[in-house]
């Protein structure tokens, strides 16, 4: 369709969305490659549109670490989805913000008139993160390949020691900050200390996350999920990391995993390692009219912020502050919040930071506290702790679920936000256009 050549910002609508169930990693690599999850959740989404995949202007997919055979995974999925050769597709990487970055970029490309319909989302198959040889082993194998004579080969092989076989777990490396050397869990420990968040607070938060997701599942609020089928034909229809019977007592017994001696952050109050994909379909005003689309809502704005990598979990506070300021809004104007649950400590720290006058003055350049987020309006259907945090996918998931929440509650405004490893935060302002 013709592109409007206007420098003015055009309205950008989210007209539909879908995601795969989020499937918890269970020791071995999961049944689905990242591209399979992205593809299978996008197929029904595209089939229910009045336009076909070839009519998309582009496909943008966030992913932190695609498999070696999924380089530019967006293009892999786009071609397998039947978008055809002519639809460009590209992958964005901003760690945990990748999925939100994909949506933001799609939003901007439509707002400035470059595109009319974009399929944007995020995907991660964390269970598929490879085990790698360590450096000593790689050197040894290289020497072996270069050895010409049998003698050289034997002497290269003879150097092998048990230590050579110790694998490098790429997932753990990915979850460790490459600049300050802290694991993501340690950065949550730092926030817990700074904002005096107790283990009891964290565990209570985690239990609530599971309860909220359980309720959402029972009450049919997870309609955004499309069923996926594995190689054996088995179908997966729901997030499988939820523990409906989770309680504070059982969580209190868990040992800290990141700071084993003095820490508070456990596997129970952290996000689960999970595989999943999430998509939203964005459309311009013109496309909405042409295809008579029924928007879920509108993307109003998106802001990004940087902060110390050691306190990366506070990213949402910084980004949301900027977003509110730019749109001249206060806490009271926001009906619902999604702050991605990387760690219970980190979400609670964001809530406390925004309500803390000193913090807001010193860090956010505000004259007073921004205000306290009502936790009844925060992550109302659970989050990363109960349904998992496939890092590249979560950003797209919270955008989609926020729009569904606004629609369900007939509310107006919501913010979807997440913290980003490396010390960043992203926040997107969404508006229900049906009220």
């Amino acid at each position, binding site marked *: 369709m013709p592109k409007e050549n206007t420098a003015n910002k055009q309205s950008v609508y989210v007209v539909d969305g879908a995601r795969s169930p989020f499937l918890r990693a269970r020791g071995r690599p999961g049944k689905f490659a990242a591209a399979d999850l992205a593809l299978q959740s996008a197929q029904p989404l595209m089939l229910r549109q009045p336009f*076909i995949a070839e009519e998309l202007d582009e496909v943008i997919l966030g992913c932190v670490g695609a498999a070696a055979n999924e380089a530019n995974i967006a293009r892999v999925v786009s071609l*397998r989805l039947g978008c055809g050769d002519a639809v460009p597709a590209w992958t964005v990487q901003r760690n945990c913000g990748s999925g939100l970055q994909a949506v933001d970029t799609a939003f901007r490309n439509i707002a400035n008139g470059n595109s009319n319909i974009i399929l944007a989302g995020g995907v991660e198959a964390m269970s598929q993160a490879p085990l790698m040889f360590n450096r000593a082993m790689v050197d040894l194998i290289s020497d072996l390949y270069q050895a010409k004579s049998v003698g050289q080969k034997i002497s290269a092989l003879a150097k092998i020691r048990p230590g050579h076989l110790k694998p490098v777990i790429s997932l753990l490396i990915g979850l460790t900050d490459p600049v300050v050397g802290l694991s993501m869990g340690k950065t949550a420990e730092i926030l817990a200390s700074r904002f005096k968040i107790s283990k009891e607070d964290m565990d209570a938060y985690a239990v609530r996350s599971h309860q909220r997701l359980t309720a959402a599942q029972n009450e049919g609020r997870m309609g955004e999920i499309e069923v996926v089928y594995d190689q054996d034909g088995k179908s997966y229809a729901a997030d499988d990391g939820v523990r409906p019977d989770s309680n504070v007592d059982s969580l209190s017994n868990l040992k800290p995993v990141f700071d084993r001696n003095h820490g508070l952050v456990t596997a129970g109050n952290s996000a689960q390692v999970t595989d999943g994909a999430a998509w939203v379909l964005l459309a311009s005003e013109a496309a909405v009219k042409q295809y008579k689309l029924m928007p879920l809502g509108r993307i109003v704005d998106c802001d990004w912020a940087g902060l110390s990598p050691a306190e990366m979990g506070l990213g949402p506070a910084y980004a949301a502050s900027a977003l509110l300021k730019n749109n001249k809004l206060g806490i009271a104007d926001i009906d619902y919040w999604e702050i991605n649950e990387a760690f219970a400590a980190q979400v609670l720290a964001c809530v406390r930071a925004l309500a803390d006058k000193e913090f807001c003055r010193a860090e956010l350049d505000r004259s007073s506290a921004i205000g306290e987020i009502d936790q009844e309006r925060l992550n109302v259907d659970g989050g990363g702790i109960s349904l998992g945090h496939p890092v590249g996918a979560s950003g797209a998931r919270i955008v989609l679920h926020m729009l569904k929440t606004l629609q369900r509650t007939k509310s107006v405004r919501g913010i979807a936000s997440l913290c980003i490893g490396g010390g960043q935060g992203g926040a997107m302002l969404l508006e229900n256009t049906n009220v």
Partner: protein
Amino acid sequence: MSSENKTQRREYKNIYVERDAAGIAWLYIDQADSSANVLSAEMFIDLDAAMDGLLKDPPSGLVFLSNKKSGFIAGADVKAFTRVHTEAQVKESIEVGQSMFNRIEAFGVPTVAAIHGFCLGGGLELALACDYRIVCDDEPARIGLPEVLLGIHPGFGGSVRLIRLIGALSAMPIMLTGRSLNARRAKQLGVVDDAVPRRHLRSVAIKLIKNKPLLKRKGILATLVNTSLARPLIARYMKQQTAKKVSEQHYPAPFALIELWKSKGGNDQAMMKGEADSIAKLFMHPTAKRLVRVFMLQEQLKGLIANDGGFEPRHVHVIGAGVMGGDIAAWCALKGMRVTLQDRAPEYIESAMQRANKLFKRRFKDKYERQAAKDRLIPDHKSYGIEHADVVIEVIIENLDAKVALYKDIEPRLKKNAVLATNTSSIGLEDIANHLENPSRLIGLHFFNPVAKMQLVEVLKADVTDLAQFKKGICFVRAIDRLPLPAKSSPGFLVNRILLPYLLEAVELYDEGVPMTFIDDAATRFGMPMGPILLADTVGLDICHSVALILSKALGMPMPSILSKMIDEERLGVKSGMGFYKYKNGKPVYGKKQTNSPLTEKEVQDRMILRLLNECVACMREGIVDNAALLDAGMIFGTGFAPFTGGPMHYLEDRGISETRNELELLEKKYGDRFKPDAGWTELHTYLT
């Protein structure tokens, strides 16, 4: 670097030859007025003339290629087979081919066959006469010697040259089964020297001509196998293996080929002559004529779309993910369609997806092809696919109310030009169509189980059916590489209706005390692929019973009471582990074979086959299909009815119409009404022209 001005070109009717600057002659086979090349008599004349021309000024090399998109050479001119009537005629035409190919073999400069697509029968024999063969591997290639499927074996030196090239152990199975090889497999076996992408075909041919690599020699094993000591032993084993699949009496060709190799395998010239003698005999055997007929029937069914107005289905929506629905969906995806597969909930689609993945794994060695097929098959319990579908196939339970409710929901959602089809086998097309907003749009597409094996699909129309929709249905069946059989909707359609009295008679025989294995053996010895008792067990006795109930009501056929009794006892066939036979791991347990039958084998065969033939006549009379050829095609490709007979109607003609009718009347006197000759017998000659 252009050599255009130096290229010389000579044209014949079916061939043109270009000579490039390097002196290489490129001989393009390009049959006039045809989309495929066949080795017709005219083609041989042109080949001969072209070789004469080349000999006057010998090129530095000679490359054979095809100018047709469809492939190199599809084989001999099968139509010409029907014009050959004496052994002498066969020998004469065989000698033309043999001496032509001998001439190519002895041409004196390096020769290359640059193959793409089809290279079958005489086409491969030509290629085998060249020094080198290369095949294009980025489009589907089919390389083989399928003569045996026509009741003969290679005749232009193919058996001699293929055995010489790759040894008897590899060569014989290719010729005995008639199965074709793809590019990869042909290279693996050494049938071709190289498999390369299309863009390299010319340059590799030039390289071969320039470098003249030594011709490949077969290994020690192949040489040992071909000794006069080893051949009789191996030949005996090959005959045993072949006899497990077909009988020598019905299918003499593979046995003749083994015999030929056994007696003459050590001497190329003797074997070449033996080839001609043997093939001349085979040609005169009735089986060859009938198998040629079967081939022509197949071509006829394939050609049914020729005059249609370009319906190119791309998306198929299948409703009902049971065994049939799921397998239809998987087959369509395998053949390149985008498919959405609907059922009530995901759990009903699971086993279909599992079976589909197994099918893709079996059919596609290449993992990217496999993945693409998988991606094309989309489970769709929310029914999003309907609005996109070019063809919608309903395969839900055989219950009119359920179907009517479904059609009410889907009809308004169909694309304007979409074909709407039901796979029902027991409900009349008009009974469903009458409930539609537009009754003329519904057609029947009746697939057979297992879908991936059974080539036939009955395409059905009722009186109200729009002919354009019906034709589109035929188009669709061709688009998924199945054989469409156009027929009129009536109970049982064609295939099941004709098969049923045959099955019921088998049950009667069983009831009368004829041992089951005796009945089944009698049928397989007649030439059926599977005995009727085993077939009933395999289909499932409950399914047989429900279809039989509907048909017996509609056609006034008496039902043996034993069937319902067995079903009451949960004896349902293979699936319940017990039907007529007992089953262990899906295989029948025969126990000791009983031979104490109250009837002779001939009597048993006659009772089953005559009832079948009588039903054929009834179908002809009712005009279920347009002609006897279609009926034969339907029974051969839909049930495996003994192909060497040429189909039931052809068999009936051979058996004698009035004789067969008399036999029926005798049986009627003895056993009653179910053998009463149909009214159609009196006008039978009009159907058989």
